[in-house]
């Protein structure tokens, strides 16, 4: 068996308590336990994390870049969802 036969895992690191897990990178490992150990050695050698997630890459469903425009289009014409859309008279505070 070779490393290519090992599944690919995506590694997510929580850098400190109170923050969410963030994608750090990926690695190959034969199982989840080894993936965690390898992730520790690969992505937290300098105390970059207090918690790790490993997720099989194959389990991730992604939007396709080809669909980018139509897929994200619904949000494109709704600037009124942002607070800066609204004009407020000068001097009005706490708003």
């Amino acid at each position, binding site marked *: 068996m070779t*490393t*290519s*036969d090992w599944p690919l895992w995506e590694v997510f690191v929580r850098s400190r308590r109170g923050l969410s897990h963030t994608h750090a990178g990926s690695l190959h490992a*034969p199982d989840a336990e080894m993936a965690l150990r390898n992730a520790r050695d690969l992505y937290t050698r300098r105390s970059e994390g207090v918690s790790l997630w490993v997720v099989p890459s194959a389990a991730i469903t992604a939007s396709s870049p080809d669909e980018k425009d139509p897929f994200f289009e619904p949000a*494109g014409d709704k600037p009124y969802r942002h607070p*800066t859309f609204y004009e407020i008279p000068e001097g009005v505070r706490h708003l």
Partner: protein
Amino acid sequence: MTVPTAPTAPTAPTAPTASPAATAGPAGARETPEAVFDAAVAADERIEPRDWMPEAYRASLVRQIAQHAHSEIIGMQPEANWITRAPSLRRKAILMAKVQDEAGHGLYLYSAAETLGVSRDELLDKLHTGRQKYSSIFNYPTLTWADVGAIGWLVDGAAITNQVPLCRCSYGPYARAMVRICKEESFHQRQGYEALLALSRGTPEQHAMAQDAVDRWWWPSLMMFGPPDDESSHSAQSMAWKIKRHSNDELRRRFVDICVPQAEALGLTLPDPELRWNEERGHYDFGAIDWAEFREVLKGDGPCNEQRITQRRRAHEDGAWVREAAAAHAAKHGEATR
């Protein structure tokens, strides 16, 4: 409906920003993939793995990232040569951490290369059979302890000069790997400089050892930036694609300018009688590089080419049982997700 201008970033960090791919909008959405790619590169956007990209761009990245990854793991050898003979426990712990970092850098880069559709095994196989290269610098031997210091200062220093601009490379996964690597390389360079400084300020024998190491590593370090601009086959296209941001000669000049005062502070000299400040240009002038030597080493006739690849193959074969055991364990516990 009147559509007012899009909200601005400071108060709405998630506001839609105009990207070249998106500005086309529904009406102009049927641009050719080439046009979308070119516009993204022109606008300094990042290309991501599933985007359309020219085959030559993909091939160029695979070649460069693979060579970079191979350099990281082959680069473990010359330094690992001194782990058991490090002069103190402190230096030994530092060197082990550094060599472990190089393995990590190799893994970040192999992962980046894999996003382009090549497999890890294919890359390792090409390294083991000489079909992909690694940096020539690692075909020089580490003869004394001072070489560990010289490698940290000069070889890692040259690598950093090369790599910092790669953090802005147009290909996202490569750029992200480089950000991580550059953060970690800084320790490599400083530990080397400190080790050399200790020798330079030590006994006359130690000082001579440090000087000898610098004398041997200086020219090969300058060669790390690759052939001169007018002979570099990939440079112009790589720069147009924003894979590279600066030319070989430009980076080499920058490195020389950085090193001269650092050498002075070390109390060591650089082995180039023609090295002098050029007031007019605002840079140091330096002597001609022996490109015949560079080509010789690149071709496979350097002092350690054979040894490096043999050792690499042996390490891979010796590790086979570990990979097999891990796979058997995973199969037995039914955790493999594939």
